[in-house]
């Protein structure tokens, strides 16, 4: 057998587990879902589906709940992504210094992002609770008026605080980027008289932009899909409806499917979410040539 044929056979047999599962459990369901979004499927009529064209998609844009939740989701994303990217980077820069017991701090900072979401919601409820919650206790002691953290006015800031508490999840990827910056660059900059502050702004930041870019894209993808935190923060069951300001887009889609069996409509909602993710990612990609620094000697 020729070397090239051998390689081809080896390659395709090695990727076959992923490829077969991708076709059967990824691509096929995806297209099936796309098809269903053009029908009137509501859970019992799978044998008598009717093609309804763009009806469901039209409905998404006239459904005030969907549009409201989309707005709230974009709002949460617009605050959550920049802040969590900055916090992740800032914490990683702290941990990149030579300090004693850095492993301990690394563990402590990273822990919140691996705590089961269910457990972290339970903990934050203690803090936000309006009667005898910790935040209100502190406000009270300072002589300030207490607020209803999980009520209409503060529910979204509370959700954001809870989400940002887990922002340490970005530490590892940032640390990997920081450790990849060659040390001699810093030494050269020091010899040229650059202060630590200048080194951070003119050296670390530009060299970290590929990692920041990666985190921004990932953050957008994740933030637009936030689902369980708003549900559990106010409700006690997975099918309960979050308080209005935290009624996010993925929650709306989840409710349509699992609480009301509106499968076809739910799929239309999710395909629009997918398009929103794509569009936002493309926007970030096109801006990247203005701010993401790529090494010139790329392979």
């Amino acid at each position, binding site marked *: 057998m020729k070397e090239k044929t051998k*390689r*081809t056979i080896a*390659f395709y047999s*090695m*990727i076959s*587990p*992923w490829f077969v*599962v*991708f076709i059967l459990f*990824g691509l096929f*369901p*995806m297209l*099936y*879902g796309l098809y*269903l979004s053009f029908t009137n499927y509501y859970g019992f009529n799978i044998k008598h589906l009717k093609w309804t064209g763009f009806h469901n998609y039209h409905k998404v844009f006239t459904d005030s709940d969907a549009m409201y939740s989309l707005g709230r989701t974009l709002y949460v994303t617009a605050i959550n992504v920049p802040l969590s990217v900055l916090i992740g980077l800032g*914490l990683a820069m*702290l941990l*990149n*210094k*030579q*300090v*004693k017991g850095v*492993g301990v*701090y690394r563990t*402590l*900072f*990273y*822990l*919140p992002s691996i*705590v*089961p*979401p*269910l*457990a972290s919601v*339970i*903990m934050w409820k203690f803090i936000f*609770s309006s009667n*005898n919650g*910790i935040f209100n206790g502190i406000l009270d002691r300072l002589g300030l008026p207490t607020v209803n953290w999980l009520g209409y006015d503060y529910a979204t800031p509370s959700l954001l605080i809870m989400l940002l508490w887990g922002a*340490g999840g970005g530490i*590892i990827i940032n640390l*990997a*980027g*920081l*450790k*990849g910056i060659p040390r001699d660059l*810093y030494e050269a900059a020091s010899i040229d008289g650059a202060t*630590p502050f200048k080194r951070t702004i003119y050296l670390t930041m530009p060299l970290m932009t*590929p990692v920041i870019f*990666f985190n921004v894209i990932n953050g957008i993808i994740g933030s*637009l*899909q936030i689902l369980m935190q708003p549900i559990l923060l106010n409700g006690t*069951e*997975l099918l309960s409806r979050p308080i209005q300001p935290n009624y996010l887009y*993925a929650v709306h889609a989840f409710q349509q*499917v699992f609480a009301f069996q509106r*499968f076809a409509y739910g799929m239309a909602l999710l395909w629009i979410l997918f398009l929103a*993710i*794509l569009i936002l*990612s493309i926007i970030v990609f096109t801006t990247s040539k203005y701010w993401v620094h790529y090494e010139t000697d790329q392979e």
Partner: protein
Amino acid sequence: MNTSNPTQKGSFPLYAALILFSIVFMFPLYLALANAFSNWNTSPGLVPSGFKPENFKYATTMIDFWHFGKNTVILCLIPLCTSTLTSGLVGYAFARISVPGRNVLFMIVLSTMMLPGMVTQIPQYILFHKYGLLDTFWPWVFWGIGGNAFFIFLYRQFFAGIPKELEDAAKIDGCSIFRTYWNIFLPMSAPVIATVSIMTFTGAWNDFMGPFMFLKQDHYPLATALSTISYTAEGTKLIIQPVATAAAILLMIPVLLTFFFGQRYIVEGIVTTGVKG
């Protein structure tokens, strides 16, 4: 690769910042602990009201805790035995075997990371329902065999960084491509295997939406059970918060221990693989 940054001795403000952030990140965990030991019918406070370690015992007896725990273990073992291995195989092929079409296929792998999970999960739910696979563990087996896009990416980055001479030496010795992977590359990849295993375990242990969608209560893992079944006082709908918190802490412990002992490997694994293309 192993360059460390400018040597700066830890200064006072640096330690103050580190300690301050540690307090911020640990505070909710401390509160949970304080509440888990508290007496029933007291509101959560900064110090536990009383000392009631029995709450942890009640957490495991008031609901079918160990039964759900067994389901959790099964749902963790399935991807650990499948996804960890197949992701490595696929990542290796993408890193070391150059054939036409490879880059397009790799772009497809990466683009699946952008897809909202529910876009495939809900049609899958309908299809699994049709073929009688709902409320079984089979979907987890299939997903596991298919690997995970992010892990494929990590393995690929790792394998791509290994010098070509090793491969050439193996070829001269007459090793097949698969043997080269198995005997030479795989034994070298302990850090990335550890990283992927820890992340697989944590993800599977914490996932409660997937099982909620595809399983019924009897097959729920702990994470799903705790978010759907309440610890209520007999005959009432009143939730006994300290017991529920104790259960949440029990749920956390295996993940925290795994991370504590494994974090060295994760950092090493990701730092040495590198995240840049």
